[in-house]
């Protein structure tokens, strides 16, 4: 069901953990769907993401997308991190099963939520960043027959 990359990131997730006194923390998720992701960011004065950690309650895809998302934003600037889309995460994982696409959206949202928290804490405004939704709505797949 999952690609080898997904399985690798699930079995050996990168950047699991917490950051004390993080620059920004974002938690998103949906108890009904069963996925909750929390991202910790350590951002320096040049708006570079020096460290990132995550914790995720969720399925294999949720864990793997969290892990991959943290890899993709690590070392990037805040602006660059903002451009890490769910599509980028999915591509980096060699794809996800259709029912699991929402996990990658969740990862994107978690990064945004952490960035929003950082922005709020520091009283800055990040171009192109909206207040994150606390919940990712589930979309029923189209039955295309």
């Amino acid at each position, binding site marked *: 069901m999952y690609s080898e990359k997904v*399985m690798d990131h*699930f*079995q050996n*997730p990168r950047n*699991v953990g*917490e950051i004390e006194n993080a620059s920004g923390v974002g*938690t998103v998720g949906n*108890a*009904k*769907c*069963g*996925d*909750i*992701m*929390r991202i910790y960011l350590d951002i320096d004065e040049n708006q570079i993401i020096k460290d990132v950690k*995550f*914790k*995720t*309650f*969720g*399925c*294999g895809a*949720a*864990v793997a997308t969290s892990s991959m998302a943290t890899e993709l934003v690590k070392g990037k600037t805040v602006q660059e991190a903002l451009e890490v889309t769910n599509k980028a995460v999915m591509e980096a994982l060699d794809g996800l099963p259709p*029912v699991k696409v*929402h996990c990658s959206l969740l990862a994107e949202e978690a990064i945004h939520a952490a960035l929003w928290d950082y922005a709020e804490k520091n009283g800055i405004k990040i171009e192109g960043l909206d207040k994150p939704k606390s919940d990712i709505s*589930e979309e029923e797949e189209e039955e295309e027959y």
Partner: protein
Amino acid sequence: MDKIIYLDHAATTAARPEVVEAMLPYFTESYWNPSSVYTPASANRKAVDQSREIIAKSLGTQSQNIYFTAGGSESDNWALKAAAEAYENKGKHIITSTIEHHAILHTCDYLQSKGFEITYVDVDETGILKLDELEAAIRPDTILISVMFANNEIGTIQPIKEIGEIAQKHGIIFHTDAVQAYGQLPIDVDEYHIDMLSASGHKLNGPKGVGFLYIRKGLKLRSFIHGGAQERKRRAGTENVTGIVGLGKAVEIAFDTMEERTKKETELRDYAMNRILAEVPYCRINGDRKKRLPNNINISVQFIEGESLLIMLDMAGICASSGSACTSGSLDPSHVLLAIGLPHEIAHGSLRMTLGEETTKEDMDYVIEKLKEIVEKLRTMSPLYEDFVKKNS
């Protein structure tokens, strides 16, 4: 790892070697259509009737009341749709439970779209139907009560006899989905006042793609599959001789070995449940501790999600399933776990392990050790566990 520990016997089982052996001649040698008039074909008519006889005996009824189908889902669909159709002049109200299999629930959705009204009677926190609510739900236009014999997720066994008596008292047809119970528990359709009963071959070490519906004599149900005159004109289609023969053999063995097998499974089940409760922190047993299928273990492991757990068990060679229906492409947690009152996060973290007669104590010891490791690993990455620890420290 090489060895696989299969703990998903509620999903499907291996056909027994004796079952396959019984089937084999009917594929290539005695392949006749049982309805044909020439002499060789009569052997196949006899083989089909013999399976019917074995099944009838196992339920304490006559073979003319057993109708072969393609499996549990067809039996469930047939029972509900045909009863609805046959008795709609009497009324259009059907009663079922909140914890039925989708083969019942989705058929009820369909019937609802056709103008039937469905009442879903609730269960208590161990999954047992609330009999007083059942009785209260009965109306003059109630035509059918369908309650499963034992639940496929949490293994809870329903008070079928009491339900049958209530149905009988009110003159209402009673159907039970016994797909999980049949072959594990003794069932007497007369004693329990069961009017229709669904079962499926692959759940009791028989072949896939074959099952049956018991229909009490006198019930005026029509065909679900129209066509040829097979199955006393009630279920068309060239008989699946191999499947029927295999099912008969599987039933024969399942009933011959039931006592010993279920005793062994019950012991192992209780041993494993007790160890898990004692050794895995923050977990609970779902379902009734006593009124449960001999082979069913269902636990909720707090702060972790079911699919991750399953994948990690899989990597350790352990086949189990989750209460979460994620597996079937849906993202909702199990309706059964929600019905017994679990909150969503906990419902998502449940694990079903269903034993088979080949499961050993060593297997379960290995599984429990692995489970402990995996739970610990997943908790270190769980934000829910983090919050919990912080709150309590």
